[in-house]
């Protein structure tokens, strides 16, 4: 008599979306590197798309909070940057004797160049473990995760909601940016980290072997994105997924149904921080730089725009949004370098006004339009 949950049409469309995302990402993982290896796709394009995929991870992190849980975080770029910085520390220490100061014999200990410039003669103790790749990767999760845990715990326990939560997250990322701008924080100051040479012994800059390393980073980014999508898809199907969206639509009802909503929000906040952080860690070797500019509030707001344009509360929306807006940016900053922010603002405005569901809602809208032209409108039934 009673149907198993998966037989319901509402679940079928969810699975369809995941299959589409999965197939596209798998194709991307295989086809782009293959084309690149045979010289049909430029090294520049591979690195560019690798960065898009990292941005897609940041967008998913925003969507997990905003689209699915109703928490508009304007500070997700902080976790992206922190992940980037943690992995950047490893990359900085890999430079070693290949740095500019070392070449001219002014850096016998192989310190990162910015430290030599600031007059350091030995490595600050907290930098030392970052010689290890494993430890650095661990810290990519631990540091952003701990920050999200502490901030989320305080914010959600105090029942900070809505615009107050948004403002606090913005303040958090701004405060962190100011801290990272300071030279005596020994994280590179306003120049941040750059001039990376090696990752796990593979060259990032060599003319012969560099492209293969970049291909590897692209494949890693695509696989991580695929894994994150798989995880999100699984999460959407659990009771946790139901509770999370119920919090978005009516937190009081959830609270009065016996759920400690603060714990659910905290869990999502920490998971979102992990996802943003791993995106940042993959971004840094591909972009070749990380600096505190990435932490300023406008970076986080931009990620919110990607999600709004792509379609929030969906799996595929943030990915489409992040890739298309950044592709547009790559083009526009060359064609119309002064007008990019105006173009971005205009797109956001148009989407909010005319396409609140984002790009993913377009096919449905077109279908509905065609139907309404052909025959009289049928009464709305929630079988969609």
């Amino acid at each position, binding site marked *: *008599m*009673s149907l*198993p*949950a998966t037989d*319901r*049409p*509402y679940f079928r469309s969810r699975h369809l979306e995941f299959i589409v995302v999965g197939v596209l990402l798998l194709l991307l993982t295989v086809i782009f590197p293959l084309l690149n290896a045979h010289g049909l796709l430029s090294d520049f394009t591979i690195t560019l798309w690798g960065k898009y995929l990292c941005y897609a991870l940041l967008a998913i992190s925003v969507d997990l909070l905003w689209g699915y849980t109703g928490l508009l975080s304007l500070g997700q770029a902080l976790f992206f940057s922190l992940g980037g910085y943690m992995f950047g520390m490893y990359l900085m220490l890999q430079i070693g004797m290949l740095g500019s100061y070392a070449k001219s014999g002014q850096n016998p200990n192989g310190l990162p160049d910015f430290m030599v410039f600031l007059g350091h003669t030995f490595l600050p103790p907290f930098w030392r473990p970052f010689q290890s790749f494993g430890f650095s990767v661990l810290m990519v999760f631990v540091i952003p995760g701990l920050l999200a845990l502490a901030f989320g715990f305080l914010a959600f326990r105090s029942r900070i909601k809505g615009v107050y939560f948004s403002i606090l997250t913005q303040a958090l990322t701004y405060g962190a940016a100011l801290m990272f701008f300071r030279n005596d924080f020994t994280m590179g100051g306003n120049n941040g980290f750059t001039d990376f040479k090696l990752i796990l012994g593979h060259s990032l800059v060599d003319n012969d072997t560099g492209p293969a390393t970049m291909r590897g980073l692209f494949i890693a980014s695509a696989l991580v994105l695929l894994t994150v999508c798989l995880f999100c898809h699984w*999460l959407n199907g*659990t*009771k*946790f997924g*139901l*509770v999370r*969206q*119920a919090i*978005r*639509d*009516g937190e*009081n*009802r*959830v*609270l*009065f*149904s*016996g*759920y*400690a*909503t603060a*714990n*659910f929000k905290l*869990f999502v906040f920490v998971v979102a921080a992990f996802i943003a952080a791993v995106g940042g860690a993959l971004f840094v070797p591909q972009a070749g730089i990380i600096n505190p500019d990435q932490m300023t509030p406008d970076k986080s707001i931009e990620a919110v725009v990607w999600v709004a344009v792509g379609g929030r509360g969906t799996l595929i929306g943030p990915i489409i949004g992040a890739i298309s807006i950044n592709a547009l940016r790559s083009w526009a900053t060359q064609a119309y370098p002064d007008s990019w922010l105006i173009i971005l603002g205009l797109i956001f405005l148009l989407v909010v006004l005319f396409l609140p569901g984002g790009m993913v809602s377009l096919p449905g809208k077109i279908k509905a339009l065609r139907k309404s032209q052909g025959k009289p409108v049928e009464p*709305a*039934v*929630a*079988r969609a």
Partner: protein
Amino acid sequence: MSHPILTVEDVSKTYDGFKAISDLNFYLFEGELRTVIGPNGAGKSTFFDLITGRAKPDKGKIEFGFEPDSHDLTDLNEYEINRLGIGRKFQTPSVYVEHTVWDNLVLSLKGPRGVFASLFKRQSSTDRDRIADLLKLIRLDGKRDWKAGLLAHGEKQWLEIGMLLAQDSKVLLVDEPAAGMSDEETHRTGDLLISLAGKHSIIVIEHDMTFVKQIARDNPVTVLHQGHVLCEGKFEEVQSDPKVREVYLGRGKHGTR
């Protein structure tokens, strides 16, 4: 003589100088179906807020259960109170509009409420049967896959009652269940509440006097006025009480004067 399952003694609550509840004493006995009436601003919804932990009293005692297993509700928050076995239906139907009717009930079904339990919990066939039974009871089995937001107002009320039943709470606090329902639906809601009494202890807040008369029958009715109990008794007694007529039933006459 059964024990009171809910004890409210000397409770006061002031909002910005306005005494929403003042020195309120109220006892709900096990299995009882109690109707609470009172003019607007009498403190009915604040009364529910205090019991369910949404608001904290300035003074007084609110206890759930009886010795040796009693709990001071003033120390607990909303979800802890709900877990003890007090469920609440809000005045405006609050269902999860983006979830299907089925999922609304899944979320309400009695069971573990933790983050990790919700990650790994699978629906058992007992759960599904229970939900299917509830859907029949609230007459929404044909609309199980509808988004709750698309239901009519009366259907949302029923769904929320269904959600309350899914929680299997000992005490049900039901705020204006018949609002927005047709006469026939109202009557059915009354029958449902009557059938639930005994197994659950119920407090119903209501304005519709036909409905109050239907569910009150021989059960006591409590009249709230200016944050305290004006009188308590059977519907007919309350209806003929001159104090009540003055503050509540008489208001219509004053209003048209």
